[in-house]
């Protein structure tokens, strides 16, 4: 036993580093162990301060700046800014410095504020009082002063200050009740146990006298795992070692309930606590839109660099003759002349970069971020996704993926609690093939008394009677349900319980509650667990007591649980309940056939079935069992594995008693939702741990499979008959033949695939010797790709994630969505592109780890078809428009270089350069991307096929991008050459006669730029106006308002001699331009020409090749006029056949 300690010591010293230690030793109350036991090695642990804040007052500025400039975009803008500062550039550093400064400051303020809140929260947590036991008295200190090894007293309703090991509680049996709502959302009270040997240390003085050490693993984030051992030293006795498990560890953040007080010792403190370890940031998910945006950015960066290179090269080619380089009227300074030509060329290149850098604007990032952040509020605000019953609406955990909701191609859904209510109702049980149905099961109404049992039985025989008794007792004993007294529940009063003090059952598994409640209706009431005795009120109102000896907990691998009890007559009994597949192989006697038939029948009806079996143990066998269990529980290494082995040995040779059936009803509108999703072109996969028959029944009920669907089975049953290889090839042949046959026909045979966990792992198993492994995977993908629906049953949680990963990595790289409600779905939620959690009964763990959480499955429809679609359309327009308007903005400046001797003369004034993206054109697009609604919400909901219009990132594909860019280039050329010809060919003057104070005058280069800029601002704003399909008063206000703002700003900017500027080049330029008739005519003409092609393209496309969306848009006026439902129906039918 001490060997491992020794080994630890050796490894510790050999490694010479503390962090190599794989376990930690905690000395309770900091008391050294007796010298004989082992050497006292002080270890250093962090104190109990929680630091969630990122910054301190001192490092805020450098650290925050560092963080911000790690973003590639910010770094790029910083670089541009620095270049402007260092070299002589055409635009002042203000033009890029100001926006950058603005963005950085706003972000810093936001992050600083958040961090300040975190500091405040940290402070209040760290300073909250804690009762510590020191020298036999209770001392009140601050939570942050707590150290590993301190003994702490916690009172009822207090939250644990760190991860504690329970030593003793005010309950005699050394148990305490805890709720972990804030950790994993499970509201049930969980029971934690003290080690029997420390149970009696119930006062401060006694606890202080405790002399023990705890060895346990180093902190790790798994909430449900803890392995340790306690060594208790008593005088003149060998130390006693006891194993410790998760049931002994009280986690920080959990709250003590129904227990007066406990004593516990701190094991993990501060940032080592499981809670702190669990709040590490999740890996960042990036949406497809973001990826295309980055691709576009790279294209634009290339354009930018090539523009700069072209201009630099042309500049030096053009300047070859000295008369061009330095004509007599325009000499260089001496310093400039002396510079080496390479340096000059490089500086010129940088200057061109600076001049054109606005093509990638800072504001795009800000706008996209704002759009995502603000836009996500519409999801949370949606009252259609609010659930009255739960009192919650949709919840957005990350706003980065809004648009991804409009791109989903695969939906992976959990069954239990997601498709179904997870509101279990006991339907029937069957003992040896005889069926018992409690009636009056509707509405959760419980009729007490045994009279309600309706037995479909015929001949009660002695043998049967015995089994029946055992069966009901088994169900009453074999569970982990707790009884909650009415008065301990604060706020909930279930209507049916009003009046009389009743208790109800709480468990982490709703099946168990349903079973125990079902038993109650059948006359066997489980009363409570008291002093490790379970009390049952049987049919004859007698209380039976069983001593609970061992609980072999449920786990998803074994899929069963057992209890070992000692009846009052001294008999040792092992009751086991579990899935049929895990019970039947272990049964040696009992009416297996009858029960199996019943189980299968129930499964087909979509009921959840459990089998119940027992085994009676002789005292000798019991001793042996105890020994095995204790051995396994004490193990420090591989405890899980050894426990599993022990369970495997114990749970065998069963006598089958019977089976139960529990119904889990489909969620409201689940079928409708699935149908809509399928119509929208999504493939729906159901991944469940349930058995095939039950899952398939649910699938049929939820219309995932139809009667016409041909089911392909890829299950263990089939692979046992044929080899996996053959089955796979068979199926793929079926599917592919069908496809080639139906290549031309409209109606395609629907396929549904059912695969189970065992077969799946065989398919995915990498087997190096057979070349077929990768092959199997491909064939499987090929088959599933041709199936409209896939059901995966008997899935372990990790397998769910594996499937998602498999599909994600397949060659089309489809966008996946995973939706689930339980802890077993978390892995797939994290794996999928979009993870959606259902705020269901199985705790909030799924909702917490998801990107979006919704109350019910039916809300997925609106989430994807409406919100997803709209967000995608909005952000796609946002991205394209941003690139478009910057091409329009910068390309004229590029063209101007050809007419100013490549001298980097900016076309626009500094103020225009700076404010174009910040204020003149930013608000309309932001607003558009927030509230644009190209089709009404009702239409989107009614017609799921519209979703196909935006599938596969269709609005951000390269052809569309190219179209926008070409449109931008075309507009830029119109702006520039339009103005060029106006200035070049004509005496472009204003009308002298009309203005009394002013005569005709010539216009200079700044008027030229202002003219181009005015046309530019109007054109891009009007282009957006043309794209807007939903004109609310806000749109009118912002679009016309921003144009007005431009005009007012220009008037003001040119209207005053600004004292702080060292140039006055814009003075009266705008006003003079407006006083000229040709300028007006030119502006109107150029705007018209610029907008014309886009309008024509739109009209032609709509008339000649309308998309489904456009049809729906055109139909809208008709629909609003004649609101005939028949018309609507024919419409949608018509669309379907298209």
């Amino acid at each position, binding site marked *: 036993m001490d060997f491992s300690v020794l080994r630890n010591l050796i490894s510790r010293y050999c490694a010479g580093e503390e962090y190599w230690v794989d376990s930690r030793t905690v000395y309770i109350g900091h008391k050294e162990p007796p010298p004989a036991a082992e050497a006292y090695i002080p270890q250093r642990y962090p104190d109990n301060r929680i630091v969630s804040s990122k910054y301190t007052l001192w490092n805020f500025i450098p650290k925050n700046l560092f963080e911000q400039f790690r973003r590639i975009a910010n770094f790029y803008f910083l670089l541009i800014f620095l270049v402007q500062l260092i070299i002589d550039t055409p635009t002042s550093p203000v033009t890029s410095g100001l926006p950058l400064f603005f963005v950085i400051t706003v972000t810093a303020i936001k992050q600083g504020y958040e961090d300040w809140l975190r500091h405040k929260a940290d402070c209040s947590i760290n300073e909250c009082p804690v009762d510590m036991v020191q020298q036999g008295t209770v001392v009140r200190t601050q939570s942050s002063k707590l150290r590993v090894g301190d003994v702490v007293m916690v009172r009822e309703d207090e939250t644990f200050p760190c991860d504690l090991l329970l030593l003793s509680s005010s309950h005699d049996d050394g148990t305490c009740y805890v709720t972990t709502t804030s950790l994993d959302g499970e509201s049930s009270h969980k029971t934690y146990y003290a080690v029997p040997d420390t149970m009696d240390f119930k006062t401060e003085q006694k606890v202080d006298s405790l002399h023990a050490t705890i060895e346990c693993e180093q902190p790790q984030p798994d909430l449900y795992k803890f392995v340790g051992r306690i060594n208790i030293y008593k005088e003149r006795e060998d130390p006693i070692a006891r194993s410790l498990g998760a049931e002994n560890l009280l986690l920080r*953040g959990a709250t003590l309930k129904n227990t007066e007080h406990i004593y516990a010792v701190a094991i993990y403190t501060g940032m080592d606590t499981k809670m702190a370890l669990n709040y590490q940031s999740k890996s960042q998910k990036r949406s497809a839109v973001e990826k295309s945006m980055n691709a576009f950015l790279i294209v634009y960066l290339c354009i930018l660099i090539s523009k700069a290179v072209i201009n630099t090269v042309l500049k030096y080619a053009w300047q070859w003759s000295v008369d061009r380089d330095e004509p007599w009227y325009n000499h260089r300074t001496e310093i400039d002349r002396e510079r080496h030509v390479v340096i000059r060329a490089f500086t010129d290149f940088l200057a061109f970069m600076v001049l054109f850098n606005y093509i990638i604007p800072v504001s795009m990032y800000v706008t996209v971020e704002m759009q995502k952040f603000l836009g996500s509020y519409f999801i949370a605000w949606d009252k259609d996704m609010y659930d009255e019953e739960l009192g919650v609406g949709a919840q957005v955990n990350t706003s980065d993926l809004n648009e991804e909701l409009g791109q989903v191609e695969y939906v992976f859904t959990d069954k239990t609690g997601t498709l179904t209510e997870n509101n279990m109702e006991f339907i029937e049980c069957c003992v040896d093939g005889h069926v018992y149905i409690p009636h009056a099961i509707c509405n959760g109404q419980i009729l007490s008394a045994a009279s309600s049992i309706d037995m479909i039985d015929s001949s009660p025989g002695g043998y049967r009677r015995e089994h029946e008794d055992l069966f009901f007792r088994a169900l009453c004993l074999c569970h982990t349900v707790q009884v909650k007294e009415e008065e301990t*529940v604060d*706020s909930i009063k279930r209507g049916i319980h009003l009046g009389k003090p009743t208790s109800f059952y709480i468990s982490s598994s709703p099946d168990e509650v349903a079973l125990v409640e079902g038993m109650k209706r059948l006359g066997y009431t489980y009363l409570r667990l008291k002093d490790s005795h379970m009390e049952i009120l049987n049919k004859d109102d007698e209380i039976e007591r069983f001593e609970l000896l061992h609980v072999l907990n449920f786990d998803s691998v074994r899929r069963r649980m057992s209890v070992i009890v000692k009846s009052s007559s001294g008999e040792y009994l092992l009751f086991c309940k579990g899935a049929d597949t895990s019970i039947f192989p272990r049964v040696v006697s009992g009416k297996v056939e009858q029960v199996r038939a019943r189980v299968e029948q129930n499964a087909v009806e979509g009921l959840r079935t459990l089998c119940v079996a027992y085994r009676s143990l002789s005292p000798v066998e019991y001793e042996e069992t105890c020994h095995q269990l204790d051995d396994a529980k004490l193990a420090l290494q591989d405890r899980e594995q050894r426990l599993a082995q022990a369970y495997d040995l114990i749970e065998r040779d069963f006598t089958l008693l019977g089976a139960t059936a529990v119904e889990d009803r489909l969620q409201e509108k689940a079928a409708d939702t699935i149908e809509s999703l399928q119509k929208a072109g999504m493939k729906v996969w159901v991944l469940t741990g349930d058995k095939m028959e039950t899952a398939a029944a649910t699938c049929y009920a939820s219309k995932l499979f139809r009667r016409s669907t041909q089911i392909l089975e890829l299950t263990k049953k089939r692979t046992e008959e044929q080899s996996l290889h053959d089955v796979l090839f068979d199926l793929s042949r079926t599917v592919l033949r069908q496809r080639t046959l139906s290549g031309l026909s409209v109606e395609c045979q629907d396929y549904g695939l059912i695969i189970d966990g065992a077969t799946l792992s065989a398919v995915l198993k990498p087997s190096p010797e057979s070349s077929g492994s990768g092959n199997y995977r491909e064939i499987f993908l090929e088959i599933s790709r041709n199936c409209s629906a896939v059901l995966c049953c008997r899935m372990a949680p990790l397998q769910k994630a594996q499937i998602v990963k498999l599909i994600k990595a397949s060659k089309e790289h489809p966008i996946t969505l995973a939706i689930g409600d339980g802890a077993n779905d978390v892995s797939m939620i994290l794996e999928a592109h979009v993870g959606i959690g259902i705020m269901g009964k199985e705790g909030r763990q799924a909702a917490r780890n998801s990107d979006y959480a919704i109350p019910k499955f039916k809300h997925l429809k609106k989430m994807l078809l409406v919100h997803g679609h709209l967000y995608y359309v909005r952000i796609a327009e946002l991205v394209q428009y941003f690139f478009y308007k910057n091409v329009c903005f910068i390309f004229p400046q590029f063209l101007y270089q050809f007419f100013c001797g490549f001298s980097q003369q900016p076309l626009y004034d500094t103020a225009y350069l700076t404010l174009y993206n910040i204020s003149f054109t930013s608000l309309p697009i932001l607003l558009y991307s927030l509230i644009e609604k190209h089709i009404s919400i009702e239409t989107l909901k009614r017609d799921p096929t519209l979703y196909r219009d935006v599938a596969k990132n269709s609005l951000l594909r390269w052809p569309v991008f190219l179209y926008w860019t070409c449109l931008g280039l075309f507009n830029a050329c119109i702006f520039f050459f339009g103005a060029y010809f106006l200035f070049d060919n004509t005496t472009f003057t204003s009308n002298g006669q009309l203005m009394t104070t002013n005569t005709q005058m010539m216009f200079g*280069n700044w008027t030229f730029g202002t003219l181009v800029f005015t046309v530019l601002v109007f054109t891009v704003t009007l282009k957006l106006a043309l794209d807007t399909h939903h004109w609310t008063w806000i749109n009118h206000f912002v679009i016309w308002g921003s144009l007005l703002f431009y005009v007012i700003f220009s008037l003001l900017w040119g209207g005053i001699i600004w004292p702080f500027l060292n140039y006055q080049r814009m003075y009266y330029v705008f006003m003079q331009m407006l006083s000229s*008739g*040709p300028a007006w*005519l030119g502006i109107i003409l150029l705007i018209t020409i610029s907008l014309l092609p886009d309008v024509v393209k739109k009209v032609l496309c709509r*008339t000649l090749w309308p998309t489904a969306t456009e049809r729906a848009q055109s139909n809208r006026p008709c629909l609003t006029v004649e609101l005939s439902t028949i018309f609507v129906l024919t419409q949608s039918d018509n669309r379907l056949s298209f």
Partner: protein
Amino acid sequence: MAPSYNAKEEDGHQPGATGHGGAGTMTNKKPDNTAFKQQRLPAWQPILTAGTVLPAFFVIGLIFIPIGFILIVYGLTLLIDYTGVDMSSPCYNCSQSYSWNNTQSCTCSVHFSLDQPFESNVFMYYGLSNFYQNHRRYVKSRDDSQLNGDKTSLQYHICTLNRCSKECEPYRSSDKPIAPCGAIANSLFNDTLELYYIDPNGSRTAIPLVKKGIAWWTDKHVKFRNPSGNNNLTVVFQGTSKPVNWRKPVFELDPLDSDNNGFINEDFIVWMRTAALPTFRKLYCIIQKKPNNMTPTLPRGEYILEVTYNYPVRSFDGRKRMILSTISWMGGKNPFLGIAYITVGSVCFCLGLVLLSIHYRYGKRNNSAEISS
């Protein structure tokens, strides 16, 4: 990481905030049923269809075409190149024998005739080509505060402390600070143009050229100002030197008219407004219409343009031109704008026709298909 972390912490501090109990506390989280939050704001929902766009196209066509014709018809322009590149041209000699130090000015006279009389006010421009007034080094080579009458930027010792604009380099100072400094001012156009009408009887009549009222009013009265303090500009500009290429200092630009001298000389102001393109023209003067209104401002006939040839353009392949133009209510003669308007108008009209036919053939079919089914 952290925000969610805090939220959880706070949850933990609420006693009894269990999932069941949540129903009571969380009802206030129910979203407001406002039109904005539910994205149901009343809205106008226009769609661009052939039907809605058609009238707009026809209207644009009908408006643009007449405007174009008006723009094309009005206005007269005459352009005379007097650079003297050809041996045959009268200014060839002057253009060859050029140096800045030449105190002897070279004159040449160009003959031309007008086929049409120029009515109303006639504007006379000088035009330069291949002259990069929009070169960046050139554009910024000025000191706006100096031109605005800021005395400090006229003083040498302050300039050495880098208080005055560095942009003027290398035309900032010779031994004394240069006023006006910078490349733009230094290269002020200094040809003198004079116009004579040759009567049929052979006698020359000088045509009065008005050199005032050619700059922007705001430039002349606000942006450009002589340094204040003394009416005698000679005193004000003491301690400064003239730009290198100038023949005379700034206070002698128009010694006869104090309102047109110094920085507020209108020729100077016009020159200081840098042109947008390398080929440009600038207003030289106005020939005002005759008061009696009976005879045209410039009657049909023979004319002589007398040029005092000072300005060198040969080195950079430039051209010098003299342009005479009348101005209509829509500005000067404007062939580009007129043609563009006519073109766009006709294109719109044609597109309208095309769309009309498409609308009738396809739009009807779509609609009828949808309704009949």
